[in-house]
């Protein structure tokens, strides 16, 4: 009986100390590992539907695709428009980088991942916790489970950088990442860009996430 107490107490101490370390680090928010110009950096961008996808595509088009590679587009289940926009953006950008290079064709530097939506448009907020939890489980699978079994780079986070711009499904995604930080697994740097549409009041996601992400940007300040 004493053993089970010992194990339980050890685990509790470990989790508590990780918890405080993570909170402490999130207040410091520095520690940027330096990268050489030639190093690539994998990124994931969340494409919430509608205007979020449009804005996310615009933001992504500002980045150097040869530097930020490979790219992961996270879309909500059932959102075919966003998937198509992601593919269209990739074709557009690959034409810019290697317009006449036949050897470059067929080299896919991106992938699409689908997760259930945390909240559907017009869904009452009261039922949102249930759909959000289902989404959270899927995010945990994407963020924690899949990288653990990756053959190419086990022990690396699922991407180096995660960019989000406001849709509600971002919150469970961030929660899954914070869970990783809590247990000491490697995680991406998170950047939140408030959506262009939020002029006077910050979005609900923004209110929740600005405490957690590594860098947040909004026009409201």
């Amino acid at each position, binding site marked *: 009986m004493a053993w089970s107490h010992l194990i339980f107490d050890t685990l509790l101490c470990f989790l508590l100390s990780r918890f405080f370390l993570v909170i402490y680090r999130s207040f410091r928010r520095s520690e940027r590992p330096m990268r050489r110009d030639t190093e690539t950096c994998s990124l994931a961008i969340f494409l919430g539907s509608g205007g979020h996808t449009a804005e996310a595509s615009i933001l992504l088009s500002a980045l150097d695709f040869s530097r930020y590679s490979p790219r992961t587009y996270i879309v909500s289940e059932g959102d075919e428009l966003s998937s198509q926009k992601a593919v269209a953006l990739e074709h557009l950008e690959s034409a810019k980088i290697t317009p006449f290079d036949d050897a470059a064709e067929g080299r896919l530097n991106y992938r699409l991942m689908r997760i259930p939506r945390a909240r559907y448009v017009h869904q009452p907020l009261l039922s949102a916790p249930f759909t959000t939890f289902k989404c959270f489980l899927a995010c945990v699978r994407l963020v924690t489970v899949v990288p653990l079994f990756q053959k190419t780079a086990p022990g690396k986070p699922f991407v180096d950088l995660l960019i989000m711009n406001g849709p509600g499904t971002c919150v469970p995604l961030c929660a899954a990442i914070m869970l990783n930080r809590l247990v000491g697994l490697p995680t991406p740097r998170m*950047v939140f860009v408030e959506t262009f549409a939020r002029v006077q009041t910050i979005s609900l996601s923004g209110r929740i996430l600005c405490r957690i992400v590594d860098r947040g940007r909004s026009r409201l300040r």
Partner: protein
Amino acid sequence: MLVFVTVGSTRFDALVQTAISEQVLDALHKKGYRRIAIQRGNSDLGMDGGDNGQDLMVFETNGMEVETWKFKTSILSDIQRATLVVSHAGSGTILDALRQGKPMIVVPNPTLLDDHQGELSSRLDALGYLKATTVNNLAVTISAFDPSSLIPFPPFDGSRFRRLIDQEMGYSVSSS
């Protein structure tokens, strides 16, 4: 002359129904428009017999040729061929139309969370980039609309975002 009406990826029954109402079509006709294309998403046209689940519909009414469909992968070509864009106040559509340099009238969809479309339309109207109105005032706004009074929308400058991300990921960023 063609006017393009769009509701984006969701549903906005009121806008779609007012777009084919007599008052709005008359106002457009008086301004010289003869064709109207409506991207209606999941909205209900409110016509007798409904649309029978059909996607594309073409008909004539009030001297105007009406073309309507539910969704397309990209509405950029429809924006490009339009003389006027009447749209829900979704940020994606607004950015698309303003960057194509099209005169724009926006109608916020008040059923969305926090009425965020209302904030965005008011701000952009106040800045002079477009005209914001409501479903009930659409005909009046069209009659009074003067595209030459609008201010051109500035082009996208991605350099700030690029620098921010490069900096965040530890790449050397030249100070300028």
